[in-house]
């Protein structure tokens, strides 16, 4: 009788326990990685929203800085600004002459001066830059004019709230609130661009800086809020109060109102940013 030594066969299969352990570990890794991914996505999304909003506010404020720095400052030119007789409750509007390029008529010799205006229309910031021709270049194109001719009388588009797409460009599609005040030479903030016994703008002789605050919502968050909700929130963001506010208080006040608002979903409100900057009007 021939005996056959049984060969040991290799064990190629996992045991059930090994399988269970491995699957558990892998499941935990997937779960952990998924959570990590979700967290990273949340962080990057929030940060991207903030970057979007900051980028837009920076571009807007940089442009305003250029326009204000090049503003024609003379006692005999007009400015459409906030004054006691033109208090501009809610969103403010401003118009002035500036030595910046603008949108010129299709023909004619172009002067380096434009009428520049900023306003909020339909929950977005609009900018008008109407390039002016040289005097007597055209019978229809009005050049730079001095007092007693006013911007309001000569270019009503720059000072009214009528929708006027051909003259205005959408400058801040996410901006829904625009407010400014004056930093006077005596160090105080005011809603009146003159001080003491003066009664007119007079080339901003009494003003050392223009302080501007804007509130804007990033693109992704804007999808979650309607224009009506943004308008309602804009109404909740107070005007500058000269008797109680100091520099920076307006931005803080707005932020508190935004944090407490119930007019829109929280994720939308979380995407609203407030930007505040001071633009010097004195030479140095």
């Amino acid at each position: 009788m021939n005996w056959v030594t049984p060969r040991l066969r290799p064990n190629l299969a996992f045991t059930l326990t090994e399988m269970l352990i491995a699957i558990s570990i892998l499941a935990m890794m997937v779960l952990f990685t998924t959570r990590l991914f979700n967290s990273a996505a949340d962080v990057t999304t929030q940060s991207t929203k903030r970057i979007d909003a900051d980028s837009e506010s920076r571009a807007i404020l940089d442009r305003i800085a250029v326009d204000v720095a090049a503003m024609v400052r003379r006692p005999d030119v007009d400015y459409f600004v906030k004054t006691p007789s033109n208090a501009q409750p809610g969103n403010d509007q401003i118009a002035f002459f500036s030595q910046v390029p603008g949108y010129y008529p299709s023909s004619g010799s172009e002067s380096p001066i434009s009428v520049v205006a900023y306003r909020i229309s339909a929950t977005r910031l609009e900018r008008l830059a109407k390039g002016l021709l040289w005097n007597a270049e055209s019978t229809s194109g009005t050049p730079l004019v001095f007092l007693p001719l006013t911007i309001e009388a000569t270019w009503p588009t720059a000072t009214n709230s009528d929708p006027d797409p051909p003259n205005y460009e959408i400058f801040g599609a996410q901006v829904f609130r625009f407010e400014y005040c004056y930093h006077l030479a005596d160090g105080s903030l005011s809603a009146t661009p003159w001080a003491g016994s003066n009664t007119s703008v007079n080339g901003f002789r009494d003003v050392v800086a223009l302080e501007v605050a804007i509130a804007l919502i990033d693109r992704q968050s804007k999808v979650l809020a309607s224009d009506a909700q943004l308008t309602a929130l804009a109404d909740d963001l107070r005007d500058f109060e000269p008797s109680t506010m100091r520099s920076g208080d307006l931005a803080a006040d707005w932020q508190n109102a935004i944090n407490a608002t119930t007019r829109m979903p929280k994720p939308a409100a979380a995407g609203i940013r407030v930007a505040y900057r001071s633009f010097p009007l004195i030479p140095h």
Partner: protein
Amino acid sequence: MALVIVLSFVVLLTGVVLAFFTRVSANRVVSAGSSRQWEADQFARSALSVIVGDLKQEVTSGLPVTATNIEPQRPEAPASGPNPIPNLVRRSARSNTGTRAAESSSTDAAVNGRAISAARWNKHYLVPRLSDADDSDTAPDPTAGFRVPDWVYVTDGGPEVISAPEQTALARYAYAIYDVGGLLDANIAGFPPDDVPAPTFGPKGVLAFADLTRVQMSKEGINGLVGWRNRESANSPEAFGSNSFGSGPAEKYSNWTLRRADGYLGVFPSASPAPAPPAVFSRTDQAFVSRQQLIAFRRTGDINFSAHALQHLTTFTRARNRPTWSDSETRLAGRFSLSRFDLFTNPATNGTPTSGPPPPIQQYFGLVYVAASATTAEHWRYVGATGNTLRSTIPVLEAGSNREPDLPVLLAYAYRLPPGASPRDVLSIVASLIDLRDGNNDPNNKTTWIEFTGPDGTPQKAFGADVIPEPGAPAPPTPDLRRPFRSVGEIGYALKNGTTSVNFASDSVDTPLLDLFTYEASATRGGTLSLNTQNASALAAVLSGTSIDRLNSSTISETVAETAATAIVAETRRQGGAAVGRKDIGRLAAAANVGGNEEAVEAVARALSDIAQPRTWNLMIDVIAQAGRYPRTATDLSKFVVEGEKRYWLHVAIDRFTGEVIDQQLEPVYE
């Protein structure tokens, strides 16, 4: 499979993180760029504060004001001979102590290649150009003698001189200061040369009648400039770029120019005196609101306006309308306005006392009117600014500040009349000035006389000089002006005691009067020209075409004007020759040597007396600031990393006597 899923998630996560950080990095660069630009802007403004502060320090440390220190220091101007860069005051340079500049030229390239070329430095065209001889070349490249400014480095301790790269360096700036007060204000200067007659522009008195052909502008270019600037006040029908003007609009332009009472700082119609502008109008006159606008105007090509002319033109002039001449104890509130003599066109109304306050003639001249009667001719009584008692002496001007004396007191002050002296000589000058002005309303052209008392109380008379003399009056002189005064220099036509003319043709005892009167009465004004200008062409433009006599029979020719201007510049540039006040115009008139009799020589005084002023520094500061840093490996001052740049032109007017900054205008320059 699960491992594949995990790995996929890891890859996705890595991708998301990478994309996020890429976005963040890009945004950080943009944000940093924006903030650096903002920093450069702040450094530029701070640099301007430092520079203006240095100028004000120069004013306060240079008291009292003398002929050797009335002008800002020009360390690089040649000690003698013509100045090749007449508009340059100084630049930031290592060789100019006090500027804090390092041995680092702004033309040296930085680490990232940024450099400021000489052509960029002359973007304003205030430095004579290399191609000034070529009419077709409009490039701003400056003359070879121009040296560009050096950098001033700003560390955490402020601007300081460094000799090697400092890690604490935050920014750097370079600057050049130009005397624009010695140039012609393009907002006022110029008139259509073929359409304004000599009797209109000859008496001068206002910068509008400066002959711009002397600063290399063509007649067409002048017509285009004035046509654009004063189209509404001239009621001109011409379009932009037209080469013609017309006699009708020229007359309107001249009339409005002579009637202005806004210090030449306003624009028609807001600056229009009576009669009022039309109720309905759609445009106004124009003004250059910046030098860049002036340069752009020339560049349009529609106006035949040579680039050569830009070095002689400015858009900013300011001055306080206050005299500089005075004794050491008294300061006048302002100058005596020549327009007050217009009151004598209606003597009875303006000179007869009533029960109320003194009439205006008594207030300004100390005289009350006496109508002709059976026993006495029409005349004036000298009673002083208040009261009705005939006076025998002229009160002494009280010491102190902000005094506004009547004319006899002012003249006695100017001539340093001893207390108690007879007022005859002074009152004769007053009477002579009245006769010069009242001609067109005095059909009989009778000599004016003023009654006063002698020390013993006996009535005395001081006579003027007119065509028909009064008994006892000197022989009649040449005809009077028959019009309002056009310049303070026309006081030179007045006579003392009917015989001796007031002399503005040399440095005489009469020349202080040039500083104490004014044609334009505004407290602050524009349209001035520095009496110490080193720009001879600008001066020649003011002199050219000035009438040499009251009949406008002849004018100062272009050639004589240029020679005279060169002589005046040479006189003010010599050691101790600078003008300290308008009083020095007499000396400069003699130096100008235009030839002819005293009246002809005084044409220089008639041209300059209301335009020229020495007390205000009208300067343009051209500053370029760069924010940045030195890398750790930097071994040379030029190896600066530029991260933001800003350029400004600051026009500033500083009163040399008080240090007051009268006005300033800031232009951001975008390149």
